[in-house]
């Protein structure tokens, strides 16, 4: 979509909602490929308010991800039922909620339709769902989309339980954790989806927390670029449910920091296929070139 599409006719400007005016005037929409988490607070964001709990790390993750989408004006997001579905109605890119767990099936059909309708144009599809949707009820469709090499990114907000329904056991929960529906503690290990993703054909897989916005930006961009050109990519991001693990609103960040230590389950892990490595090297080289040219231009002006 061209930025022209969202321009407001001058005669109508004053009657449009202030949020829309702001979106047109101060969004990073047209700044394709050069957006990032540093835009947060300096320009109109794709999300401002949310209906999550105060201090929920998922709300941070949402802001970093939306600020990092390389081409939001041509990105459609697919969600699922859960806490994420309470946020999507606030998000200013087209997004689809249909059922619980079918997000990768929806995204498969959507990506193919967009490829048929807009050949040769960038139309990124990004799935964002919780761990129950991704790993339990939707695992079949998660994996099958990867087997088929569907060209979209799957992001899993891993809070290691069913948060929205009140803290029940999920497949990504740690072994031994006592939760609703696991009254004597979970009896089996946390499902190793990042490894399964690699074996299922994902070209770029990262397991990390959302404690560092620059890292989130990097992995989001990489995952979307690789999905756009090569094939499926998977990000598993720890967004702890502070409510269900007994933390206070201000303790989410520390919980993530504690969980990303080298010996912990969210220590940064990355897999990049050879094909994806080539692409990312190429993109990095172009970006370096662009920055050098911009610097030169700036020096010339000075």
């Amino acid at each position, binding site marked *: *979509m061209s930025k022209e*599409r*969202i321009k407001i006719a001058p005669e109508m400007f004053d009657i449009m909602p202030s*949020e*829309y005016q702001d979106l047109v005037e101060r969004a990073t929409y047209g700044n394709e490929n050069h957006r990032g988490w540093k835009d947060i607070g300096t320009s109109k964001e794709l999300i401002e*308010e949310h*209906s999550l709990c105060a201090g929920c790390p998922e709300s941070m993750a949402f802001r970093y991800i939306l600020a990092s989408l390389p081409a939001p*004006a*041509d*990105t*459609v997001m*697919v969600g699922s039922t859960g806490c994420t*579905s*309470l946020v*999507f*109605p*606030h*998000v*200013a*890119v*087209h*997004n*689809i909620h*249909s*059922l619980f767990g*079918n997000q990768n*099936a*929806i*995204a*498969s*059909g*959507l*990506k*193919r*339709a*967009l*490829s*048929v*309708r*807009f050949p040769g144009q960038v*139309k990124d599809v990004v799935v964002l769902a919780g761990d129950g949707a991704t790993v339990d009820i939707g695992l*079949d*469709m998660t994996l*099958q989309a990867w087997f*088929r090499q569907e060209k979209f990114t799957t992001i899993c907000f891993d809070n290691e339980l069913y948060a929205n329904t009140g803290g029940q056991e999920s497949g990504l929960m740690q072994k031994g954790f006592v939760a609703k529906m696991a009254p004597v503690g979970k009896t089996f290990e946390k499902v190793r989806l990042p490894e399964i993703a690699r074996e299922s054909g994902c070209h770029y897989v990262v397991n990390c927390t959302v404690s560092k916005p620059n890292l989130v930006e990097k992995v989001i961009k990489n995952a979307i670029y690789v999905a756009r050109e090569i094939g499926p990519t998977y990000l598993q991001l720890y967004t702890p449910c502070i409510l269900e693990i007994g933390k206070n609103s201000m303790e989410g960040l520390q919980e993530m920091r504690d969980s990303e230590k080298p010996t912990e389950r969210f220590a940064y892990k990355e897999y990049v296929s050879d094909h994806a490595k080539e692409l990312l090297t190429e993109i990095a080289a172009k970006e370096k070139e662009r920055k050098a040219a911009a610097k030169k231009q700036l020096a010339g002006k000075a």
Partner: protein
Amino acid sequence: MATQTVIGTQNKVGQTIADPWKMMHEADRTPCFFTGSEVIKEAIRRANCDVMIAYPITPQSEAAALIGELFAEGYIGDYFRGESEFAVMSECAGAAFGGARVFTTTAGPGTMRAMENFPMWAGARLPIQMIVTCRGINSPLSIQPDTLEISYLLNTGMLVWHAETAQDFFDWILKGYMVSEEPDVHLPLALCCDGFFVTHTKDVVNLTPADMCLPPYDPYRSPVPCMDMECPPVRMMRDPFVMKSNYISYATHASWQQEVWAAVERSRKHTIRWLDGMVEVDNPDADILIVASGTAVSQGREAKAVLEEDGIDLGIVKVKSLRPWPEEEIREATKHAKHIIVPEFNVTGWLAKEIRATIPNPDRVYAGPHVCGGMTMPPEIIAADIKKLLGIKAESLAGRGS
């Protein structure tokens, strides 16, 4: 892209995009001797479809595979085998959300497995067309014709039509898109037939020219935004309704459900126009009427011939559309009838229940005969039930204990 501007131009495989009314009503027809599955393929060849998603289940597998051949020939934008019917129907939804004209086929247990998707399709106003080649759904396993699954589709908010013959199938697939894609309708269509009886038998079907096709789907005529980021996104709401236990939330959900069913009602005028009425009535002045849908209509016609030999006069009402439901038409057609016979290929008799709920003096309705699990319905058993109803002694039929 306005529909009018593309008529007369060619699509990417060189078919001429036709005025759909002229294509269906005025263009030359060529008789062909095809199976129902082959007829589905021929209809889709002319439907200018963007995406078809397939999954094997008897008796629709052949049709689903034949459409794969159309994809290989370039007639369809994309085609793939999904992983289960639940996933396939979600993949169809994704493609329709993205602005594609979508087609799929399923049957029996597949329909049941996919069921969660259907009210979602209707609620999301996705004009997907799904062929349902009905078969048994109960345990023990049966792959044979049985129409019980249709009863589960009736309250999903989808349009539901029940084809009798392969000719119905050919015409209604193409006409179905014209009805379901109307901006004031924009709902999915379940186009049902009785598996095997229609899919696996050959019949003479009059086809429209293969070098003519429907105009492409225009997703910007949809009453809800197409999810392709070609129109400005807006933040839909500050507080998602799902979170709110208050009157506004309930009213929002209630009004949308009402709107879906209002759209089903609005499809009535288009359905009447394109299907030339929602029912087809033969000899409505007879005291005894058979009211049926699907191949039960064909068997009813045979029964009429059988009974005519005994001097018993019979009328036939063929119900084409189940949703919208032809309430007025059925009341009118049955107003003189003393006995209304509703033969069905299922054990519960859902059509008879619908008719009983529609007409005055519902005691006139005789729910039966019912065959299920793949049994055929010889016209003699319909005739025997009618004779019994009239107090005429009928010959004993083997296996029926009469």
